[in-house]
């Protein structure tokens, strides 16, 4: 009983610590109410044939504006088409009117050509802009990405225990063989 009371107290303390208001963090602002833009909007890119695909993963309570998304060539030998985006959800704002937005995740695709057959590493420049439902907007973010090759991206890294499993399986098989073999005489054909 005493232990459970202590545990509850500890839990309460931990809860109180994590729920500490901004002032008690020694921070004179409520910046903890909002995510860092690179956490709110995570972005990655991959190349699949002559198509580059850029994907954003958007935190709950945050959104990206469809018309603010841009994909441009960064490497000098690259030509990228206007990106294709799915239709967004409609958001009506009393000041900005109706806008298309994306929540959770979105993938843009664009075709590309390379004029000097890949002498430069492939780099694209992506721009996006979004806000938080709680009432905060981030200025447009521009990032230069080096898209992964889709085949390389699809090839999974070996699981760290896979080697152990293979060796263990071999060892188990050897043990099984030894167990079955034990006590039997060699039955060689007569010379």
């Amino acid at each position: 009983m005493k232990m459970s009371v202590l545990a509850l107290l500890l839990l309460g303390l931990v809860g109180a610590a994590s729920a500490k208001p901004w002032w008690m963090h020694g921070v004179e602002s409520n910046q903890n109410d909002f995510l860092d833009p690179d956490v709110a909007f995570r972005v990655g890119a991959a190349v699949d044939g002559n198509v580059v695909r850029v994907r954003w993963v958007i935190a709950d309570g945050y959104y990206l504006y469809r018309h603010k998304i841009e994909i441009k060539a960064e490497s000098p030998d690259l030509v990228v088409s206007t990106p294709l985006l799915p239709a967004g959800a409609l958001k009506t704002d009393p000041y900005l009117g109706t806008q298309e937005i994306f929540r959770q995740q979105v993938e843009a695709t664009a075709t590309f050509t390379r004029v000097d057959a890949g002498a430069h590493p492939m780099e694209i420049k992506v721009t996006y802009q979004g806000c938080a439902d709680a009432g905060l907007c981030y200025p447009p973010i521009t990032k230069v990405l080096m898209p992964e090759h889709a085949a390389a991206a699809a090839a999974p890294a070996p699981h760290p225990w896979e080697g152990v499993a293979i060796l263990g399986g071999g060892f188990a098989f050897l043990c099984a063989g030894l167990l079955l073999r034990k006590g039997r005489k060699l039955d060689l054909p007569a010379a």
Partner: protein
Amino acid sequence: MNTSGLRIGAAALLVVVGIWAGARIHFHRVSTQNPPGVVSVPAGVASAPNPSDLALPAPKIPDRLPQFSLEDRTGKATSIASFEGKSLIINFWATWCAPCRSEIPLLERLHAEWVGRGVSVVGIAVDYRDKVLEFADRFKIGYPLLIGEQDALDAAAAFGVETPVFPFTVFTDRRGEVVALFIGELHKPQADLILSEVENLNSGRVQLPAARRAIEEGLWALKSPGTG
């Protein structure tokens, strides 16, 4: 059961366990990788151990109102020091930012309500000058506006906001002490709470640490769904 039977059983068990372990690891690996064709997105700082590491960087807020000058609506360079002796509600905003636009009616009301008590709203638009002037005319913004691009970003940085986000609002008392920096859309209950502490500071009823503590506790109490 004879010895040979036991041996066969043990060997079979070993083989079955080996196959099970291998299969388990293989399927775990398959289930944790992206389905084919899905672009992998880096985790960023999402693996940070402390949730506050995921938040906006903490602004290094100055104790006192920093000095800076920006152009007003007529193009005249105006120093923030020209508001000396007044408590200020300094609101950083941009025309493209929906929450900034939606808090403007509140800022208008606050300015009208508090101007007689030595409090002034100062809007700092971080945006293109022509867009701001057009917007200010259309929405009949009555409080003073300062406008700038990089120079306005520098002013935001002077308040410790290095990663610009909009809107954010700084409250100072009449001595120029920075009382609070509120990030995100301001609502009336939060504004009233902070301003009542600014008033307490101005009248000497409280000292800055007590005012800040009261603001912190009050904002925490207001934090419920719908109040931001």
